């Protein structure tokens, strides 16, 4: 058996009410590639952040090369030979590769000696691991794949023996990912230890030697990759949780209200964030979009809500192409007028103004409505009456409409947004992460409301990273991965395992 590089025993970590890691124990062997997989919020990033010194565990021990250690900050981690490649790269864009690599480890008052030494070292590293990075390139002008390699180089330059990569392929093309895997294998073959955090089953099977599966803060499986297949992992990863129960009658959906055709989105650099999205939502139907976050769902929602201009495609609402209204980007105010309401994913940044009172938040986006105006001023009584109506209908607490929205709990904030958006009686409702950070009671109420709207004949497009929510609410489920729709499943046929495979990028 190979030597143990890192051993975590009984790691426990809470953030307020959230129990992020529960008694996690884990052994990582030297000279291996170790995968840690799990859904969003399974606790894998928290665990690695503890290892890298961002957080301190509430209890538990860390051993590096069989020596007990305390890692108080990233400095300690670097000293112990642990390097981290973050999902969001920590690079200075207008610096050269070389400058980025020596930053913080310049090795002297002047830069020259440090840069020269780094250049030689880098050449060696480039050779050893096939990194192919030009030391003098400006980082901001490099592609994402190369930037990632700069991050790897940074860690290696600091003498990392253990390299942690957080969702390394989230931003890569398949070719770039393959290159990355070659590099990782080369690293392993030279005796380095690699830990990758991911949710993608394919790459776990392809590249890792061992896998640890996490769910809800716990380790639920520790296996040799060779002994398992994708389905086993998906099963472990998604588990057999008690599904959320929402009473829902079967209904035959009516006419198509929202018809999205060939919608694509490219960012400034020309990277395709959405690729040829086609979907339809009928009256009286909830269409759920499942997927791990960062696979294009947010962008899709923003394109449809008029926040991002689509590069191509049509958005037909009752047969009328709303993109045509103004350069592939319908104004949000016009969408609302037409009857397309939007509950944004991030309520505190996008859906609310936290320092405003509840009654002011009740009109955000509908602040031009005639019934709340009196001459050129607002009819304050009508405003407050409206807010009070929301408070009563949605059981918002505390019941004082004059409170600032920031003083409400997450669930009650979300109820304000929901109440506001459905009050105008829209035909189509775009819903993003309706229960993120929301307590159980509010989840139930929000779910009931969404089903009620569906029964009233609304067309609802639901984007959520909570698989249970998707399964509980949707009539039809679409799965997104890598900016495209990878599968469609009628709700009654959907299983968590099947969806898990699709979400992991495995085509059905």
């Amino acid at each position, binding site marked *: 058996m190979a030597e143990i590089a890192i051993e975590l025993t009984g790691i426990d970590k809470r953030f307020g009410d959230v129990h992020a890691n529960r008694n996690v124990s884990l052994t990582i062997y030297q000279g291996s590639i170790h995968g840690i997989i799990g859904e969003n919020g399974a606790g894998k990033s928290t665990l690695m952040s503890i290892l890298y010194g961002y957080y301190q565990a509430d209890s538990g021990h860390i051993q590096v090369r069989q020596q007990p250690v305390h890692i108080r900050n990233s400095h300690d981690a670097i000293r112990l030979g642990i390097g981290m490649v973050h999902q969001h790269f920590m690079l200075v864009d207008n610096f050269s590769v070389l400058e980025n690599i020596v930053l913080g480890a310049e090795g002297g008052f002047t830069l020259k000696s440090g840069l020269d030494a780094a250049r030689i070292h880098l050449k060696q590293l480039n050779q050893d691991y096939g990194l192919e990075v030009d030391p003098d390139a400006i980082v901001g002008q490099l592609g994402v794949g190369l930037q990632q390699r700069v991050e790897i180089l940074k860690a290696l330059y600091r003498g990392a023996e253990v390299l942690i990569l957080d969702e390394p392929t989230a931003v890569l093309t398949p070719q770039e990912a393959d290159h990355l895997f070659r590099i990782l294998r080369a690293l392993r073959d030279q005796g380095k230890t690699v830990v990758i955090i991911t949710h993608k089953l394919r790459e776990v099977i392809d590249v890792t030697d061992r896998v640890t599966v996490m769910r809800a803060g716990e380790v639920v499986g520790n296996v040799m990759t060779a002994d398992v297949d994708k389905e086993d992992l998906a099963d472990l990863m998604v588990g057999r949780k008690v599904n959320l129960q929402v009473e829902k009658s079967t209904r035959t959906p009516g006419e198509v209200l929202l018809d999205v055709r060939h919608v694509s989105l490219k960012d400034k650099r020309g990277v395709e964030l959405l690729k040829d999205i086609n979907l339809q939502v009928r009256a009286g139907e909830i269409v759920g979009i499942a997927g791990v976050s960062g696979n294009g769902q947010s962008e899709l929602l923003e394109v449809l809500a008029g926040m991002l201009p689509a590069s191509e495609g049509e958005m037909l609402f009752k047969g009328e192409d709303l993109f045509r209204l103004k350069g592939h980007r319908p*104004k949000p105010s016009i969408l*609302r007028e037409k009857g397309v309401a939007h509950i944004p994913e991030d309520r505190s940044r*996008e*859906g609310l*103004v936290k*320092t405003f009172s509840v009654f002011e938040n009740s009109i*955000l986006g509908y602040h031009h409505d005639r019934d709340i105006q009196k001459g050129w001023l607002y009819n*304050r009584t009508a405003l407050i009456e409206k807010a009070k109506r929301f408070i009563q209908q949605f059981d918002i607490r505390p019941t004082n409409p004059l409170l600032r929205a920031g003083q409400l709990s997450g669930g009650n904030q979300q109820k304000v947004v929901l109440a506001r958006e459905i009050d105008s009686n829209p035909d189509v409702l775009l819903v993003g992460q309706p229960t993120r950070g929301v307590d159980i009671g509010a989840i139930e109420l929000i779910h009931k409301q969404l089903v009620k709207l569906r029964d009233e004949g609304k067309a609802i497009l639901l984007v959520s990273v909570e698989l249970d929510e998707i399964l509980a609410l949707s009539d039809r489920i679409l799965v997104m991965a890598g900016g495209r729709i990878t599968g469609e499943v009628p709700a009654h046929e959907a299983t968590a395992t099947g969806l898990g495979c699709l979400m992991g990028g495995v085509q059905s």
Partner: protein
Amino acid sequence: MKFGQPSTLPRWAQLSVLPLLNLLAALAITGLVVWLIGEDPWECLKLLVGGAFGYGEGIGYTLFYTTGYIFTGLSVAAAFHAGLFNIGGEGQVYIAGLGVSLACYAFDSFMPAVFMVPLTIMASMLFGAAWAFMPGYLQAKRGSHIVVTTIMFNYIAAALMGYLFNRVLMEKGGTNTATRAFAEASWMPSMQQMGGWLGLTLPNTPLNASLFIALICCVLFWLVVWHSKWGFELRTVGTNEQAARFAGMNVSKVVIVAMCFAGALAGLAAVNEILGSTHRMNMTFTNGIGFVGIAVALMGRNHPVGIVLSALLFGALTQGGLDLSLDKPNITREMIIFIQGLIILFCGALENLFEPFIAPLFKRKP
């Protein structure tokens, strides 16, 4: 740039206790400086208060200065509500003065007061707004930073006015760099005059009807900012621009209109100075009034009530300070500028500095 970090104190304490502590800190440091230059701070304070409020004329002057500060304070506050830091008040007042003067040059020889007064008021607002429009436009459409642009526009305004005074505006044969005196039709009715209409005998001070305009502006400001849909958009853009976009607001338009609104308010300060007091435009008539507005707005927490109170404070400091400097030749007008700077520092940049010290006092009681 976002203001108003969340505070854990009750709202009334945030609005009263913190500014008061900040003011006290500023005054304490001033007291120290006064003591350092060999004067008795307590005696100076008494003289200052006496000079500002002790006699009719003093009160008149105090309120005259207050009037101007209310305008520039409201101007800075209007921009703050949209998340913009308008340092350009000085230039906006200056250019508004040009508007007033041009209107007077054109019409004061024949137009009666009933038309003249509204006309000059409009001119001041229009010119002030126009000078603020450009920085607003450049911020909204071209991404130039409003602070740098407004600073530059202050200097451009100063150069422009310098040129115009030299070539056009300066009265032929006059000794000061000033325009000719404007005809009486354009004068704002003075408080003494208006008191006379009511049978009151008031001292002769520059205090004039602009004070009422200032107070009306305060009420309008309150209504517009907190009770109209335009004010709602203004505050949303200033607090959470992302949410404003999601709510379908046109952020650029709001920014531009907010700056025009700010410029128009600043412009009115020129009416108070020129048509209320000197009845001609002096080259140095702005005299830092735009910068006082920053302190007034920050101390008044961008609310009209607070602005009136802090404008009154600064009006009293200005008038009392002038009186004080007669008794104490060592203490000049600049002492007030110093206090103003300290107040900007404490109320603006360090607004919640004292919160950790007083927060425990509020925690015990629900």
